[in-house]
């Protein structure tokens, strides 16, 4: 897969793998992300995966653009870093109770599906974490059934409940903390999606595969208690 390196600033290089979101392009983004992450080079400060690109942010006092470019060109992803194939999907329990999915009816109306079809299509697909952004721990997931696509709300909610599962455009995601948000909410997970005090603050990384496991309200309450305790 070809890479196009462009300087984004005096402290960063944007590595572009294509101009369309395809599984091959996304895999390349994730392979380079994991290879650079594994290198643990302290001169690299941050890695920002996007849909078709990886932004590599570095300390220009410690390393030059040319040196970073050479590092990127030579970063050979090892098979073990190909997480999309090697590691099992992360299972995220989701309760699709109507209390947790205030926008289920709107999604159904917009897509011409029944609410139960919407729910079934949502949990039965296999997703990939494209990247995390917007807020700490917010994972953008690719792989949603195209029929579920729906524009975001015209007026975002001022506060979306923790764990809310939403749809916007052709993507789905989970709100890890209470934030304003314009995605259409169809369910909620009891799983804690971000905790800065844990060694692994987020249960998912860019490139991970995700399966939603539908659960009922009783199971939701039980798991919520468990994760709180």
């Amino acid at each position, binding site marked *: 897969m070809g890479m196009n390196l462009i300087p984004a600033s*005096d402290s960063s290089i944007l590595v572009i793998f294509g101009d369309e979101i395809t599984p091959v392009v996304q895999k390349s983004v994730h392979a380079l992300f994991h290879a650079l992450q594994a290198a643990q080079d302290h001169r690299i400060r941050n890695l920002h995966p996007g849909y*078709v690109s990886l932004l590599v*942010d570095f300390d220009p006092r410690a390393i030059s653009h040319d040196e970073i470019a050479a590092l990127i060109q030579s970063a050979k992803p090892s098979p073990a870093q190909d997480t999309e194939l090697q590691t099992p999907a992360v299972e995220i329990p989701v309760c699709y109770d109507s209390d947790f999915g205030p926008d289920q009816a709107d999604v159904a109306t917009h897509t011409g599906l029944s609410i139960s079809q919407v729910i079934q299509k949502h949990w039965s697909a296999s997703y990939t974490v494209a990247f995390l952004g917007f*807020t700490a721990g917010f994972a953008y997931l690719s792989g949603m059934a195209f029929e579920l696509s729906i524009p975001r709300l015209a007026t975002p909610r001022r506060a979306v409940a923790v764990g809310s599962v939403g749809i916007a455009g052709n993507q789905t995601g989970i709100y890890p*903390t209470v934030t304003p948000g314009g995605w259409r909410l169809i369910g909620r997970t009891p799983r804690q999606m971000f905790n800065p005090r844990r060694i692994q603050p987020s249960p998912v990384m860019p490139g991970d595969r995700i399966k939603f496991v539908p659960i009922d309200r009783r199971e939701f309450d039980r798991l919520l208690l468990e994760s709180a305790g």
Partner: protein
Amino acid sequence: MIRVAKPGLATTVQDLGRFGFAHLGLSPCGAADQISFRLANLLVGNSENSPALEMTLQGATLEFERPAVIAVTGAVCNCKIGSYRMPMFTAVEVPAGGVLQCSNSTGGARFYLAVQGGIDVPLIMDSASTDTRGKFGGFDGRLLRAGDVLRINGRPGMRSRAILPGALDALRRAGPIRVTRGSHSDWFTDETLAKFLESEYRVTEQADRAGLRLAGEPVVPRERRQLLTDGIPLGAVQVPQDGQPIILFVDQQTTGGYPKIANVIAADTHRVGQLRPRDEIHFAEVSIAEAVDVLRAQEQWFKGIWRS
């Protein structure tokens, strides 16, 4: 211990930032004016990354339970300890029971208070910076409030330092904010890029640590294209649909979907941290190589300002 009597407008505990977690959606946060932040710490004898306070526009009033050595740097403000007029950019001793009163800033937006030993807050994901959007880090993940009590990390044998007279004049140089081309500069025509560089922009009221919305000559890409969300570098100047540029800053989101026309150079980000609403600014383009040279020169200057 320090008790917050009046918190000011937006006072937070910061360090130089939380790095290594952008892939989990974490902004770097950290001091908005890193030069002033480092100066404050080094003046009192701390390491430059020690947790210290950032105040914005409006100063705080703080009560010191025990004697402490402190320094205030950054935007111009009047600080008093009791009735004593405290000089800025100078390490000063506060007696037990002393009350530090910082006025509103009269030039610039942010000022910093470092205390010898550093402010004692837990490191969250390797940093003491406050992430106000994520509500973690710093002091309880939030702005300081009246009644908060800050603990100080005491270490004996620390020595404060002093800055050579006149050495800080270089810091107050005016002139355009220097930028390099952004990741999507080629989305704009040469005429639009020239217009961006020739025009004066005003900092609007919507200016905070996440970004500074500017008002002035609109700059619009040559065609309306959908941008696939990508990473945002610190200091990116992004252009939303209305064509009014936004400088994205330390609390910025890690990814975004608007084209970036330019990027503030690393050596000038500290100046962005001092911009306040209604300031008028210009941009000037430099090459990446020039930007790195300016940064290196700035670091050299920074090493040379200290009295031995």
